[in-house]
């Protein structure tokens, strides 16, 4: 008798668990349609009339959030302006995001692949923007290409992607790069700027030869070609004036003592200018030791973290006098730049990161391309986007976007894609300083917003 009760109980239990799993699965399969919201799109708007932009980035981290903010902000502006009309039907824009976990030091590429698939097959996005870490993007880009979906890169600078477009156009034609310009072009702009800067500053100090150039870079793949180019070309560009010190390629897990020893090493070698090529945490260590020791050289180069407005506080003000490449700052880079900058700060309470500018421009460009093509079909949209060349650029907030034929890569150089050079100045403000690659006053007004300030201790030492 007892065993029978037990038996019945067990069967009931299994039935309950079975039904539970079934219901769970049903809810899980049925839910996505109802549950997905697309921020930015007008509420209650039909999914069929919403163009959904998928943001692939690292949720909760600055780059991923910037990508989302930029895309969201663009959608908001587009929708406020009445959306886009295709064949007499009004479409609005919405955004959605997935976490690719790209900025995790222990990057696991399968997360990015998973996120990409979620965007494509779950959120059913129409276009995707994002990506900033090449290793991750290299893995998940394949998903978008397999799904024949237009993907606009907003953060990764490696040439590889556009080389792939060039080599196997049929497989990769859905990829476009909106931000930043590729690393080769970036290298060129850095080289010209630096060469000009070295010669100018040397002229300012008759009592001191500014000629010894050091490089401090993290030992990762993206820097190798850049560092190689600086080493080989900078002396030539300065007419043999600049001499290069042995470059320091450091392990990214370095400590403060290591950084101190590298900086002291550069000092001992007699460096006058040090070019950092840093994307990760090394920058803060560098500036901290630099400010503390007041080393007798200038820091002028790439430090991605330094582009953030929080960097001043993060370093406790030690980043003062650092000059770095920055895609956009509040200046008249294009006619839209200043207005965008202010509106962005009003919306989000902080400055837009370069990825945010890229995502904003990318989504705006998608809108224009869709309108021109009068279709959502990538095969019709791609030719429209390809038609934006140097004679017919697409006006954005971060520059005039024009693509080289076949590569879907940005054209570099004023007035198309170029980077600004900004310096942290006492008091925590940043100034766009004059550089060879752009005029002080451009087509839309003043580009530079201040003059370069030589760190006072260096000034004393040199004069």
């Amino acid at each position, binding site marked *: 008798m007892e065993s029978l009760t037990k038996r019945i109980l067990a069967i009931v239990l299994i039935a309950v668990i079975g039904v539970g799993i079934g219901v769970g699965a049903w809810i899980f399969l049925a839910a996505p349609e109802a549950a997905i919201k697309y921020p930015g799109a007008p509420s209650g708007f039909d999914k069929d009339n919403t163009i959904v932009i998928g943001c692939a980035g690292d949720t909760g*981290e600055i780059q991923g959030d910037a990508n989302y903010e930029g895309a969201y902000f663009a959608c908001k502006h587009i929708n406020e302006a009445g959306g886009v009309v295709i064949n007499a039907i009004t479409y609005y824009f919405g955004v959605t995001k997935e976490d690719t976990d790209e900025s995790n030091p222990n990057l696991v590429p399968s997360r990015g692949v998973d996120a990409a698939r979620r965007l494509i097959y779950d959120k059913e996005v129409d276009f995707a923007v994002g990506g900033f870490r090449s290793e991750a993007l290299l893995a998940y880009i394949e998903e978008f290409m397999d799904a024949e979906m237009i993907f606009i890169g907003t953060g990764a600078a490696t040439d590889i992607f556009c080389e792939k477009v060039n080599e196997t156009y049929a497989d990769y034609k859905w990829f476009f790069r909106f931000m930043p310009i590729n690393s080769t072009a970036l290298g060129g702009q850095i080289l010209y700027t630096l060469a000009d800067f070295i010669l100018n500053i040397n002229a300012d100090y008759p009592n001191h030869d500014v000629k010894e150039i050091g490089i401090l870079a993290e030992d990762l793949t993206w820097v190798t070609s850049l560092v190689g180019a600086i080493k080989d070309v900078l002396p030539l560009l300065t007419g043999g004036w600049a001499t290069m010190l042995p470059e320091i390629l450091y392990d990214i897990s370095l400590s403060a003592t290591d950084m*101190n020893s*590298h900086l002291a090493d550069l000092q001992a070698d007699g460096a006058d200018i040090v070019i950092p090529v840093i994307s990760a945490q090394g920058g803060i260590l560098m500036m*901290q030791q630099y400010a503390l*020791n007041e080393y007798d050289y200038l820091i002028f180069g790439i430090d991605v973290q330094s582009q953030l407005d929080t960097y001043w506080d*993060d370093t406790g003000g030690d980043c003062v006098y650092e000059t770095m490449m920055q895609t956009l700052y509040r200046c008249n880079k294009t006619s839209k730049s200043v207005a965008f900058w202010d509106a962005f700060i009003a919306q989000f309470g902080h400055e837009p990161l370069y990825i945010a500018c890229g995502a904003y421009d990318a989504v705006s460009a998608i809108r224009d391309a869709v309108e021109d093509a009068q279709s959502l079909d990538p095969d019709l949209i791609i030719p429209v986007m390809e038609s934006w060349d140097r004679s017919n650029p697409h006006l954005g907030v971060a520059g005039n976007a024009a693509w080289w034929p076949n590569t879907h890569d940005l054209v570099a150089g004023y007035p198309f894609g170029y980077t600004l050079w900004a310096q942290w100045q006492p008091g925590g403000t940043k100034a766009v300083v004059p550089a060879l690659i752009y005029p002080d006053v451009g087509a839309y007004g003043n580009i530079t917003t201040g003059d370069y300030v030589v760190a006072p201790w260096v000034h004393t030492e040199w004069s």
Partner: protein
Amino acid sequence: MEAEIINFLFNGTVNGAIFSLIALGYSLVYGVGHIMNLAHGAFFMLTGYMLLWFPSFLPEIPWLIATIVVIFVTIIGGLAYIILIKPLQDTSVGVVLITFGLAFFIQEYVFVLSGTTPYSVKEFKIIDGVTKIPSFSFINQFIFLIFASLIIVSVFALFISKSKLGKSIRAVSQDREAASLMGINTNRVLLYTLMISAFLASIAAVLYLPAAALNGPSMGWGYLTNSFAVVILGGMGSLVGSVVGAYIVGYVTSFTSIFIPNGPSWAHLVPIIIIVIMLLIRPQGIFGKKELR
């Protein structure tokens, strides 16, 4: 050349000072309880982030905050032992897994609160500024760190050799069973050991990080790897070995970074290579004895 040698000596010494503080605690815990505490680096990292968080709700008196943080981390070390490690201490895989879990949890918790953005905590510097000589400038906080480390290590050595608790710690590390026969509560001693170890890691962070930076939630692992190298070099559980090993690792790292071509990118491989070489040649370390068990 002169500047390079000073650079090498100074930074090597600073490395040694910081590694010795961190590795000492690690080695102590291993020696006493055969506990491989993978959360040791996380204690170091957590201290740094607490220095960052606490000023927002405590009065901004640096030394007070620093003291509270150190006490906090010490208590966390103790709790980690009582709640997590003690029930598993007989299985080496279990201890490793649980301490890894703890380290991973602390790391992710810090990540959720502060992300991977680096931060500065320089308001906790004890001595600001630098001391300049013609060819080199010494960071004062680092000079202080070197002396503080030497003092702490000496006090620690004195404590271990003279105090009653120190003697019981040594007794437990040499023969746990015999120690318990003497009436020593071995688990209690292990608890104190873990707290001391967390305390040392925490002190190291308080002394060092203000002159450095919080380099993201995963920065603890590098110090843990260095601790491995140090204790493998000096001999697992040998305290003298830990200190000597720490300075050796410190100088070798610094030497590689300064004098070897392309050294900076190899400098962090050096401790790991030391681990492998020592394990293959002399697993018991320079000062260690062959394990009897």
